[in-house]
């Protein structure tokens, strides 16, 4: 039986932090801090293509000259990404979507967050292979012309548009839910404002990402 007395131990007996809780908080943190920041940086870098191929190549060169770059890529991008994707797939497997019955806005966002999680993962695997791993294996140089040669293909270009828009949605909607997960936006009014700001961010980064893609062709 549970104790029903006032003379309870102020410190609970079991003070072990539960695995599931920690994993869920790390999942939220990984999505926003290393991955979200990296994505914003990446979108900004790509947007230099809007100012011409020379400007873009210069920017690529600048990034490639960062010391210990492969280590930074592994620890700040690859590992958080693999964890975020793995745990995210697990989370979407155990949830049972019901948007057919409950067509509420937040329920739809919940569903699209899981859909874009999968599309983003597929997109990222292809994208990392073609512009990060394949150039290492085959010794090709990463520059404007390489990106141009890929994006000239209309199918690859469309795939990139879907991939970029999906990833931007996943990130900006993730900020909205992250604010709830971290207990910042508590009531419905603040959550509505956060939702509007995130929608604005989605529009800004979405337009930036897609116009940058057009700059390569």
């Amino acid at each position, binding site marked *: 039986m549970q104790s029903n*007395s006032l003379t309870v131990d102020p410190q609970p007996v079991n003070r072990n932090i539960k695995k599931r809780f920690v994993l869920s908080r790390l999942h939220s943190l990984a999505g926003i801090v290393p991955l979200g920041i990296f994505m914003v940086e990446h979108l900004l870098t790509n947007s230099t293509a809007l100012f011409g191929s020379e400007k873009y190549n210069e920017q690529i060169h600048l990034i490639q000259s960062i010391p210990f770059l492969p280590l930074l890529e592994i620890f700040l991008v690859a590992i958080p990404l693999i964890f975020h994707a793995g745990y995210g797939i697990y989370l979407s497997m155990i949830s049972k979507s019901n948007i057919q019955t409950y067509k509420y806005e937040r*329920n739809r966002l919940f*569903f699209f967050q899981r859909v874009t999680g999968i599309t983003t993962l597929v997109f990222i695997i292809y994208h990392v292979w073609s512009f990060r791993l394949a150039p290492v294996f085959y010794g090709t140089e990463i520059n404007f012309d390489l990106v141009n040669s890929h994006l000239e293909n209309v199918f690859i270009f469309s795939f990139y548009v879907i991939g970029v828009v999906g990833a931007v949605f996943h990130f900006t909607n993730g900020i909205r839910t992250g604010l709830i*997960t971290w*207990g910042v936006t508590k009531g419905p009014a603040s959550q509505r404002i956060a939702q509007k700001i995130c929608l604005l961010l989605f529009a800004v980064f979405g337009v930036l990402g897609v116009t940058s893609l057009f700059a390569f062709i």
Partner: protein
Amino acid sequence: MSAEKVIRLKVKRKDKMDSESYWEEFAIPYRPNMNVISALMEIQRNPVNTEGTQVRSVAWEYNCLEEVCGACSMRINGKVRQACSTLVEKLKQPIQLEPMETFPVERDLVVDRQRMFDALQKIKGWIPIDGTYAMGSGPLISSGEQQEAYKFSTCMTCGCCLDACPNVNSGSPFIGPQALAQTKYFNMHPTGKLTKNERLEVVIGDEGISNCGNSQNCVEVCPKDIPLTTALAELNHEANRYALWSWLKK
């Protein structure tokens, strides 16, 4: 004219806990201002399906008939709600009635809501006031806090929030919005606060708040308009702090 008017119902039935579900249709005479309960009572009075066969009458649960007991929750035209406060005139026909399949279905529309009562035990859903001597009166509660707590006190353990939550299902350990909102309720009481950490242990546990996916269906379907998502966000805040602090103190 009006005597010919009928209401068509389509009920998802089940004879025993371990038997298969099947659909059965009924047509009952229309009366003004009917709710789903009175429609089901009509079936009970004359349990004949649309094929004209005499069948076992449909089983369902109800008590208060005024949306305070939580017993008559069921899926009406897909969405979970209380049968007593759902008016037949506002529904598309045939009215489709299904049990809340998130819970074990016992018979027809009757489900076993025990998991929610177990959950209240897990979160210690009570205020500890019994001692071996007189404890005296407790601290005063401001009227603002009373107003806030009142909303959570109206929870009738009906199960709508669990049934509409995409993250409450057989594959997930989630305790559900009802128990978490009650955690907030008992934690905000000045005497209930004394056992706050024990409740937060459940919140950061495997069944706890980490399973919430922010679909916010719970607050949309709650018949009592309890601010469930506000409670969840506040608990997130408390749980994060509690988890970090208790780890740093280890």
